[in-house]
C-alpha cells in the first residue's frame, strides 16, 4: 500500500463520510458546508490523480459558487428541514 494509494483511500473515505453526513443532517446550512467540503475533497482526488483542469474547475464551482448559491437560498428559505 504505497503512500499515494493511502492518500487516495483517505480522500475517498472522506468523500463517503461527507455524503452520508449530508444524508443524515437536518440543518441545511450544515449540509451546504459539508457539500463544500465534499467538492473540495473531490478536487483533491482529481488534482492528485493527474487531472488538474477538472480539479481547478470543481474547486471553484463546487466549493465556491454552488455553496454560495445554496447558502443564499437557505438564508431566504429556512435552515431546518422538517
Amino acid at each position, binding site marked *: 500500500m504505497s503512500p499515494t494509494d493511502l492518500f487516495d483511500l483517505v480522500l475517498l473515505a472522506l468523500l463517503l463520510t461527507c455524503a452520508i453526513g449530508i444524508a443524515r443532517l437536518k440543518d441545511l446550512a450544515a449540509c451546504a458546508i459539508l457539500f463544500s467540503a465534499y467538492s473540495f475533497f473531490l478536487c483533491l482526488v482529481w488534482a492528485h490523480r493527474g487531472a488538474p*483542469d477538472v480539479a*481547478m*474547475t470543481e474547486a471553484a464551482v463546487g466549493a465556491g*459558487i454552488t455553496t454560495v*448559491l445554496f447558502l443564499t*437560498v437557505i438564508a431566504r428559505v429556512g435552515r431546518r428541514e422538517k
Partner: protein
Amino acid sequence: MNKRKFARVFTMALLAALAAPLMYGVLELPPPGQADAPAHSNVSAGYIEHGAELAGSENLVTGVLLNFRALDTFGEVLVIFTAWLAVSAVAGKGSETGHDSTPPSPVVDYVVRLLGPFIAIFALFVIVNGHVLPGGGFQGGVLLGAMLILLSLALGRESVADLVPVRSWIWLRAAGVLAFSLVALLGLPMTGYLFGLPIEPALRHALMIVLELGIGIGGGAVLAGLYFAIAGVESS
C-alpha cells in the same frame, strides 16, 4: 407517519436492488489506471501522440475542447447562456425582496478589497494560458465568476451589479456564444469546415485566444448573473 416510513423502506429496497447490478457491472469494466485499457488505446492515444501539434495547444484538454470537439464546447457555452436566460425569465416576485442583511465586518471588507484584483489577475492568467498550462476558458471563467460573487458579498450586490451598465451585461454574458459563432463562421472560408480552426500557428493561436476570452468572460458574467438573480438584485 407510517406513510413516510413506508416510502423510506421502499426507496431503500429500490436502491439496494439497483446497487447490485451497478456494482457488479462496474466491476466488470477494465480496472482504472491500466495503460492498455480501451479508454487509452483508442481515440485518446491519437490525441496524446499528435494532438499537440494538430490542435496547436500543449494542454491537450484545451486542444480537445476548442479544436477537436468544438461543437461540444459551443453547446456548452450555449447551456451557460440559456441558464442565465432561464433564471432571469423565471425569477418571480419572490427573489426581488433581496435584503442586504448585516453589513460585512471590516475585516471581510478589507480582505476582499485586497484579494479582489489578485483573483482577477489570476483568472485572466488562467484564461489566456489555457493552451500551455492547465486552465482555459471554463476554469478562468469560473474563477472570474467566483471573484465577482466574492466582491458583491463584501461590497454589496448593487455596487457590483452597477459596475457595468445593464445593456452591456447581456452582451458580456453572450460573449462565449458570439466568439464561437464568429470563429465557426470564419472556419468556413479558411478551412472549408464549420468550427474548423486554420492551420497556420499564429492565426490559430489568435483565434484560440479569442475563444478562451469569450468563454471566460461570458462564463464569469453569467455565473455572477445567476448569483444576482438568486440574491435578488434587480440588475438585468
